[in-house]
């Protein structure tokens, strides 16, 4: 098999990653995230009109009924309408709003869902989400340090942070809503990207021990080439199902699927270029991976 010189492009990849991260960071700092109801609090009502909904009419109704700051958008089909009220309305407003919409409309208005999130909950969720992410990264680092070696652990975690920031950046740039399911997707991305990184690291470790005369760059190139087929196939199958989910899963799960799609894509890239690159930067060498000789064990005795 022809060894692909992945690491020959490592400077280019580094630059690419840095650009991505910068865009993400700038966007996160200036535009921030379009936090969903779960995080901001407020009221959300999804209704289904028996015929095509007149969004402007609904907006007018809401205005005359005194719902200031209501956002009305169609959701999925032209008969489904999503109404979002800002923080500050009481928890019973959702049901009341439904009655008022029905009164102002001749056909039937069917309730799809009402969500009310109080102000206390949102902040806590953000805190919890951040905590979960840090905990996940920490434990994963521990496990890899234990199973492999510290440099691998650092490499994997750098790749994970890279992926998380890029996905967050994607949501910030596109302005897609960041709700609880997206947070779950983000954590799943950590799991997935890790999976990839470990498979690659596993091969790097194996080749460091097997190939006696090769410098680290060569070893990593060989390892990446060997695992490339698997990396691509797995990413492909995962992205296939995610595509199915994004296309057929409905509006409620759409942002989740998109987050994972972006995450898997960037995770595949990062397991090749970020994790391995970080390893090289830290000067990984054969010595890091030698199995320590256990004292007393496997010593042959010479008997007279």
């Amino acid at each position: 098999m022809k060894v692909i010189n992945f690491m020959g492009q490592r400077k280019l990849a580094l630059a690419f990653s840095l650009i991505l991260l910068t865009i993400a960071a700038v966007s996160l700092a200036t535009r921030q995230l379009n936090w969903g109801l779960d995080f901001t609090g407020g009221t959300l009502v999804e209704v289904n009109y028996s015929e095509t909904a007149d969004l402007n009419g609904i907006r007018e109704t809401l205005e005359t009924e005194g719902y200031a700051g209501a956002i009305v958008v169609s959701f999925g089909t032209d008969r489904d309408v999503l109404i979002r009220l800002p923080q500050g309305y009481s928890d019973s407003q959702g049901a009341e709003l439904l009655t008022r919409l029905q009164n102002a409309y001749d056909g039937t208005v069917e309730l799809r869902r009402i969500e009310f999130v109080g102000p206390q909950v949102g902040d806590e969720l953000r805190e919890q989400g951040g905590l979960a992410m840090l905990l996940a990264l920490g434990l994963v680092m521990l496990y890899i340090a234990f199973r492999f070696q510290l440099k691998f652990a650092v490499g994997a975690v750098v790749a994970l942070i890279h992926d998380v920031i890029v996905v967050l950046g994607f949501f910030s740039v596109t302005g897609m809503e960041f709700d609880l399911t997206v947070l779950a997707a983000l954590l799943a991305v950590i799991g997935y990207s890790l999976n990839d990184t470990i498979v690659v690291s596993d091969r790097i470790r194996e080749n460091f021990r097997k190939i006696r005369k090769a410098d680290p760059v060569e070893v990593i190139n060989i390892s990446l080439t060997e695992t490339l087929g698997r990396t691509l196939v797995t990413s492909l199958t995962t992205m296939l199902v995610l595509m199915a989910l994004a296309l057929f899963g409905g509006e409620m799960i759409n942002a989740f699927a998109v987050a994972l799609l972006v995450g898997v894509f960037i995770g595949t890239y990062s397991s090749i270029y970020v994790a391995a690159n970080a390893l090289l930067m830290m000067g990984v060498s054969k010595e890091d991976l030698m199995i320590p000789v256990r004292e007393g064990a496997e010593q042959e005795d010479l008997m007279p």
Partner: protein
Amino acid sequence: MLNKYPLWKYLLVLFVLALGFFYAAPNLYKPDPALQITGESSAQIIDEATLTRAHKALEEAGIDYFGETIDPDGRNALIRLRDQEEQLQAQARVSRVLGDGFIVALNLAPTTPSWLSDFGAQPVKLGLDLRGGVHFKLEVDVDAAIERRMEYYLNATKRALREARIRGYVDIDGDNRLETKFRSEDLREQARAIIAENHPELVLDRVDEEGSWNLYAVMTEATRDELADYAVTQNLTTLRNRVNELGVSEPLVQRQGKNRIVVELAGIQDTAEAKRILGKVANLEFRMVARLEAAPSEKQRFEYRSADRAGMSEWLEREVILTGERVTNAQASFDQNGRPNVQISLDSEGGLLMNRATRDNIKRRMGVLFIERKYRTTYERDENGEEVAVKIPYDEKKLLTAPVIQSALGAQFQITGLDSPLEASELALMLRAGALAAPISFVEERTVGPSLGAENIRLGVKSVQMGLALVVLFMVLYYRVFGVAAVIALSCNLVLMIAFMSIIGATLTLPGIAGIVLTVGMAVDANVLIFSRIREELKNGLSPQMAIHSGFERAVATILDANITTLIVAVILYAVGTGPIKGFAVTLSVGIVTSMFTAIMGTRALVNLIYGGRRVEKLSIGGGV
């Protein structure tokens, strides 16, 4: 011989799969829409006559029903309907006919055949986003409970100092501390001794000001925590009790975190009704039974609450001795002769009030009233001539019990002479329900309509099917015969996942379905790892049998590492996450575990069956090898 499993391994794989199919099978039977009828109080028995009235109502409306059952104890009845569309109408009809004494709730009755349910096989539970319903998150106002307790310390201290004739200033300051100020150090020390004796749980702190000797008292951290914990537990019990009143099948009332309570009610659409019942304030009143000669203006007549004494009533004095706020606990128990009783604890303020009221009234009787906000349903025609249900609130005060006072009572006393342990536990429950420890507020509410739930299921199933189809197509084209083996293993994995979720009683949600879809994509990863290894080994010139053998052997370590780390992430998701995140974490972790079994052992068994133990010239694994 290479690549032959010993018989037991084949049998193990077969056994696990058989078990999986068996426990996944109940999910194939579609549940019937049904009405569940329960009595508003547990004394309300549902008999054939009740059912006949319900049947009549349904027949008049032309609604098809079948398979009705009554529980042996007469507490529950179930009427199955043919058509989901008619469920709401049926509920309205039946509850109208049966009246306010009964609760008619929507339900989905499982149709699991007995040969499955006899072995504990049940369909997987569906989350609210899939079946429709309401999710509430309530917050217990712990601070209010603490404030109330401070209030009590204030009153108790004022009285104690008055009785000891110690003059001083007593109040609650801005930091929620009990602040006392005295003219001399001596007075302060006397007061300190009294407070320390009465309330050892308070931490006392001396502060000297110009001409004023002050003493500050605060609750210890432990007391605060205990109080907060008690307030939440108390509310939890009360809410459970009230949720039963809604007659929802399998309601969930669960504590979350330090001061939150989650309530999930499937099939409920009318959130206003649910909130009214959950948030309603019940209370207790303790009053003396009026003397015969008492003037009519000093007494009031109350009926008994329990059905055994239906129609019986007592005259009580108008003056209230104490109310439910003073009750800290009520527990059903047994005396030394094994007779049921109820142990009641009051806070010390309540104990004093009780003592004062009872010490001169021995051998008289004391009544306990249960006060409940209730709603009377009347039917009116609105301007469009349609009939609408109107609920009119009123306070219902009914007598729980009126025992004879045997001696002067204090903060701890018991009610004896109860007929049965059941009566005792009901009385205790009512007493606790009447003594809501701290106010609650709704901090989160999610309602999912039934049509959205049904649609979510449909979309979810469709995405699983499409995802699976795409992966199947790809795997078979790319890995040929090996791809077929992987696909069979993948399908078995889906069955095992469903079975596992059914067995552990996990709840399937929309994000959970997303987890299943994701697992479909990721589960083949193990196979991909193995097959790439085999291809590599073939390229390295190994014989087909050797390639299969070492491909499996060498990939296993990698698969384990990769999956264990993903499992770590999934477990963290479960531990830290709430709601949708938890649902996703459950299917993800279940998927990881089952996929390791099917992808490693299942595929190996299949490959061994196809290629093992014979001479093979070429493997059908694609990739030009």
